[in-house]
């Protein structure tokens, strides 16, 4: 049986419980720190701002990279175009018609096949395979 004094103490404890619970709700524990609502809001805003900055920075870098890639792509296309033009120039200057015209301009005349004699020397052997990379 409990005494009257004990019952009063029990009642006081029961009355004080809601006040403590309210206090606990108002002081949330983030990691090791106890933060109030204002601090929590501030930190949240800061975090969101930080993330936004990071995102904008990433997007900026992506756009810059994209522009660089596009510039390089345009440069590649330009170089390809120049390469094709150069190949065409080489092919044109290697064409028999171009060579013949150049030869004529320099005063050369076509060889007369009737004046050429081909001699067959028997028992000749090739001494060595000429190196195609060595220009005479």
């Amino acid at each position: 049986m409990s005494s009257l004094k004990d019952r009063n103490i029990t009642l006081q404890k029961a009355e004080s419980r809601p006040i403590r619970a309210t206090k606990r709700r108002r002081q949330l524990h983030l990691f090791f720190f106890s933060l109030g609502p204002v601090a929590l809001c501030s930190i949240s805003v800061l975090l969101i701002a930080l993330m936004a900055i990071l995102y904008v920075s990433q997007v900026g870098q992506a756009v810059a990279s994209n522009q660089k890639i596009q510039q390089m792509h345009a440069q590649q296309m330009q170089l390809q175009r120049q390469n094709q033009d150069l190949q065409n120039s080489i092919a044109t200057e290697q064409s028999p018609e171009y060579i013949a015209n150049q030869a004529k301009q320099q005063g050369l005349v076509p060889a007369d096949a009737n004046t050429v004699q081909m001699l067959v020397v028997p028992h000749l052997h090739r001494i060595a395979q000429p190196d195609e990379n060595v220009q005479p």
Partner: protein
Amino acid sequence: MSTDLRRARKRQMIIFLLVCCGMVTLLARLYYWQILRGQQLARYASEEHLQNQVLNAPRGVIYDAHGHLLATNVVRDDVYVEPVQFATDHQYSENRESELALLIHMLHEVLPEVSEDKLYRIFNTNLQTYRIAGPISPQQSQQLHQLHVQDVFLEPHPVRIYPGGDLAAQVLGYVTFDGKGLYGIEGQYDALLAGKPGNFTAETDLNGNPLTVGVSSGQPALNGANLTLTVDSNVQYMVQEALADMVKRVQASSGTVIVMDAHSGAIVAMAGVPSFDPNRYWAYSDQMGCLGDESVYFNPALYCAYEPGSTMKAVTMAAALDQGLITPNTTLNDPGYINFHDGTPTVTNWSREAYGTETMTQVLEHSANVGAAYVAYNILGPQRYYPYLERFGFAQISQIAGPEATGSYRSNTSSGWTPSDLARQAFGQSILATPLQMALAYQTIANGGVMMRPYIVAVVNDNGRVMTTQPQVKQRVISAETARLLTDMLVSAANYNKQATFPGYSVAVKTGTATTQGLPIDQTEASMAGFVPASNPRFVILVKIDRPQTTIYGSTAAGPLWRSIAQQLMLYYNVPPDLPSSLESTN
């Protein structure tokens, strides 16, 4: 239940029904936007920030036998103007007319082919864009870039270029502005050369440029295959020039030359006159080749079928020799004509010349129609003659490079055939053959009786997958012994006439002077076919000159050209002489 309560219940019911109606309406609209029009709206949304590009596949290039470019691609610009944009930009400008005049003057300076009047007319239209020139040269593109003029822009696009100009034009064909290959190799191998276009889908930035770092997808373009031909540019040029010169010299209407490797069947050169420049193919649309019958774009060596005339006598002799019915020394009496007992019209020699008793070799030396008709009609007969025409490949196509005629002849199984056909086919009338078919007949004789399948594409490189064409035997047509005997007969014919012979080399040739029914006798198709050196053949050469005017015979119109080409080939390929040369004989 009280009255108030009933009223309240009624109000609740009305509100409930209204809410239900609202919900149903919302659901209906949701169904409309999400289900019925959902896909369309999603596509519109995607189109706002997604771009789909078609990636053009570079067309494959074409090389000659030495790896020199015969056909390649370059990028050239088309020039466009924006008349409406110019009008908008200068709507409130007081100097509009003077600025327009300055712009037109600058454009005309760079593009003299576009007149100032035409430019004025274009700028006074209500067109958004108008193509005024293209493709323009790289120098013109550079000049226009440097002008920095507004309302003018350049649109680059790939252009097919042939660095050799008209070199082997009829072999190559050409490519139209929309990238379609026509005629020749370009037409025959169009699917292989064209490749497969790819695509690229990507998010775009505000300027519409694709964001390569964003979401993207696509398929790369598959490049067209590169082709290497058996044609030697140097020989091709030499042949083309010599043919053009001869056609001009004898005032002929057209001409054809084929140079073929005697053992492999590879085409070394194939030329036709008149020809065209594939870089400016549109300028030749009204020009005709092949005796004025066909467009100049067709390759006459494949498409221009003709009556081969006396060059056919070698085939007639081959059939009789191969069946052991004659030898080179078999004789006949040739009074200059031959009559037939069944009413077949009389066959005569050229100018009705009589040769008396002559051997089969002399029949070829004299190019006697009587002897050839005698062999076909009296010795061979249709049962033993026509199988040989089929084995020699007449009236059959080769499919080597573009459009090709089949040629034709009437055999004893055809309707309308008469014995007259047999007698005339023996010396090359009443039969249509392409120059390639005639060249193949002589290739068979040169190659010991074995016909090779002709080919002009040596290597196909399809994105690293290399396919090399190997020489392929088509069939044995005559025995090796027959080929040897016939070669000797053709050498005798060449030495007898001397139009094709030259020091140091033995040649085996037969001339042909074909007349066409319904045309005057001096309107001939002069030809010469044969091979060199006769002892170890390297090249088969066929020369055909159509309607020569200054001289009408195969020996005099085609012979000199045949000899010139043969002589050049021997020098170019360092072929050792097979006869004692004049220099050696003098020592």
